């Protein structure tokens, strides 16, 4: 519970991209992602252009790629799904040379996999770039300036604030499980893990009630005061 450690996604810096107003960056990200998603997947060179544009922004922000790439693991489940598609999809099949072997895969599945992988990767990289160059509180302020309903902004704010608290709650519960000879990773002990997660939910819910009490005690009336942000 010491002091220090910044947000895991934010990369401290003072570049043009870091200093740009948050609401502008959010709009650009949204525009970029929508454009990428709407681009027909057969336009291969265009995706190269998108990637070059994105890498240009990353370069301008002076965020090292070695910082962004490891954080792209969130995308792995989608990539696995994409890799499966050529094998399970129907339709005309093509032979694909794969390290001396000829593998017969579905042509439409292959296209779908390509589309999913390239659009997903571009989207994740763009989002990580926003996260790396913008403090979470600035993202919230940006969303607010974009007139996102206040309630949603409040909920996201609390999520950012309490993520570390809840994660460390979970960490302590897992340590306690291990200390009593239960390995949370072993499927044999998944029932115990499930009960722990249930307990974590109840704990967090009760914390929510206590936080609400503390807010009421300081005159909260349903709206976060604008000046306090």
């Amino acid at each position: 519970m010491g002091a220090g450690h910044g947000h895991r996604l934010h990369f401290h810096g003072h570049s043009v991209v870091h200093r740009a107003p948050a609401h502008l960056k959010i709009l650009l990200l949204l525009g970029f992602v929508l454009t990428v998603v709407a681009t027909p997947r057969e336009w291969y060179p265009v995706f190269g252009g998108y990637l070059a544009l994105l890498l240009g922004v990353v370069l301008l922000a002076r965020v090292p790629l070695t910082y962004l790439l490891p954080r792209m693991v969130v995308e792995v489940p989608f990539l696995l799904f994409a890799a499966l598609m050529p094998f399970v999809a129907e339709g005309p099949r093509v032979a694909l040379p794969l390290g001396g072997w000829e593998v017969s895969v579905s042509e439409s599945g292959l296209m779908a996999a390509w589309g999913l992988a390239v659009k997903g990767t571009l989207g994740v990289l763009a989002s990580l770039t926003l996260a790396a160059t913008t403090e979470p509180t600035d993202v919230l302020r940006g969303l607010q300036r974009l007139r996102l309903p206040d309630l949603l902004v409040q909920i996201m704010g609390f999520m950012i604030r309490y993520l570390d608290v809840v994660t460390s709650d979970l960490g302590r519960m897992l340590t306690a499980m291990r200390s009593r000879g239960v390995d949370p990773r072993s499927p044999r002990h998944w029932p115990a893990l499930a009960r722990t997660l249930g307990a974590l939910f109840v704990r967090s819910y009760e914390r929510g009630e206590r936080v609400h009490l503390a807010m009421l005690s300081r005159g909260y009336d349903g709206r976060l005061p604008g000046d306090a942000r």
Partner: protein
Amino acid sequence: MTPVLEIRDLAFAYPDGHQALFGVDLHVHQGERVALLGPNGAGKTTLVLHLNGILSGETGHGDGSVAVSGLPVTKKNLLEIRRRVGVVFQDPDDQLFMGSVRADVAFGPANLGLKGAALEKRVLDALDRVGMADFADRPPHHLSFGQRRRVAVATVLAMEPEILVLDEPSSNLDPASRRELADILRDLDVTLLMVTHDLPYALELCPRAVVLSDGRVVADGRTYDALTDEALMRAHRLELPWGFDPRTIAVDSLPR
């Protein structure tokens, strides 16, 4: 003179039927520092939640009245009551819910309608009083536990309360943070009600102690007298830490 806090014949039962308070009477005058002592389950927290109207006869089955500087605690007066009574809860993670220390301390006064430079000044003054002004732009969850407890005190001080209510201020603090907080609390010029199990802390900071047991006030007098009354202590599950004897403390080092 109107007491800052006037509790009359306060009784309360939770909606599930559990009766927590049976007719509590308590007056606290301006500038007093009072320790509220009692074993677990004595009703201390229930009493604290009545002071700013979180609980009242309207939410459960209750009787009696609470008034702060003459203003009765009722739904109609809640906002003003919550300005006058500053409650610091036990877990600072419950109290600090905004993204930065500055925003958190500003939350209360901004709810009271303060804006701009006046708000900024109020926030920095409050942080200064607990020695945390250098941390204004840090997110609360990046502070140490002792620092978070101090910021929690500042969030309440920023509302300029007439009475500061602390729930277990010394719990979970290491000895150095515990002493630093004591130094801060001693220097605050504010009426104080401190709920605690830490009897040496009560003796160090509060000249007066009120003992609550089973929802009743069973003693109200000098803290020194309560802690040296062995029959009273034993009857209400109060125990001094091993090796601590109030009688060995020089009389002129006790708070007045």
